[in-house]
């Protein structure tokens, strides 16, 4: 039986895709979430949700020099899960409601927090 050239190349292409796919698509633990370091002293926990396509509440008051831990609940979706506070060097992708960012607000004042694309914003007041 004569196999046509094109059929042969189709078959070989299919085989190589399946073989490489079997190797490269095997999945393991690909959880890339990072969690912040735990600070000393009692931690101020803040849970932020989402309302009207923005963070809610979008004004948060915390005490200075006491660690702050911010969680995003399950209502927060899309790019808003990528949480940033530029003034404190915070930029984390919080994949699940259990992930958080933790930092020490060492300076008093009003700071802006936002998603990485600037589509959701809010204010952090350090007193």
């Amino acid at each position, binding site marked *: 039986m004569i196999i*046509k*050239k*094109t059929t042969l*190349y*189709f078959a*070989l*292409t299919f085989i*190589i*895709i399946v073989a*490489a*796919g079997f*190797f*490269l*698509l*095997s*999945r*393991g*633990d*690909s959880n*890339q979430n*990072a969690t912040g370091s735990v600070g000393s002293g009692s931690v101020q926990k803040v849970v932020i949700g989402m309302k009207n396509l923005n963070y809610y509440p979008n004004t948060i008051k915390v005490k200075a020099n006491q660690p702050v831990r911010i969680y995003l609940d399950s209502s927060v*979706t*899309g*790019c808003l*899960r*990528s949480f*940033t506070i530029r003034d404190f060097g915070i*930029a*984390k*992708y919080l*994949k699940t409601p259990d992930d958080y960012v933790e930092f020490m607000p060492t300076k008093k004042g009003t700071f802006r927090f936002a998603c*990485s*694309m600037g589509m959701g914003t809010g204010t952090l007041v350090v007193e």
Partner: protein
Amino acid sequence: MSLKKFMKELGNDKIEGELVKTIFISLLASFAILALLYFFKLRYVENFIPKYGIFIFLAILGYSLIIPSVKHVRAYKEFACMSGMMIGMTIGMIAGFLPGFYLASTNGMFMGSVLGMALGMFLGVWNGKCCGIMGVMEGIMAGFMGGLMGAMTSTMMLNDNLRTMAFVVFGISAIILIGLNYMIYKETREMETSENGDAFFTIFWSILLTTITTWFMVFGPRSALFS
């Protein structure tokens, strides 16, 4: 001149008959270099397969469809303005979108956009010049847009079904590139090919693109989102 006839031409001795063979050679070369890189370096990278495997796999499949299209265009060299513009736009857009999408999935939007735009604009111009300055301009613009859009799409889907979307994007791109090959075939029936191209062209570009993409994915700079 139907699609059925085009499928028959895939077995002839002209450039159309080389397309499936080129896909095969491209895949073979890309996976061979990936296997070598894996053996010597990448296996020491933590979580290499779960983190990068799917995106490298799809990027290689994407390149294996882009390279035959480039070869197809180069075989005829000169096209009418309308066809040349479509060629520059299609190749620029897809060659920008796919690497941009896959690289941004692992490294963030900056790296994805830069590589996507660079590849998209380069390949867009290279192929678009088959009809002169209009094709070149079309290739530049499409590569620029495709690179940015691919990276932006994947960044915005990080919390959504990114991996599924990666397959969807590849599937649509594959259909578009096959459509481009059919269009080139339809537009060039009266023309003689100036060259059928050799396997070296396919192997060289497959190895280069795969190596660049893999290297940037694993060792390239990352945005704050992935640090």
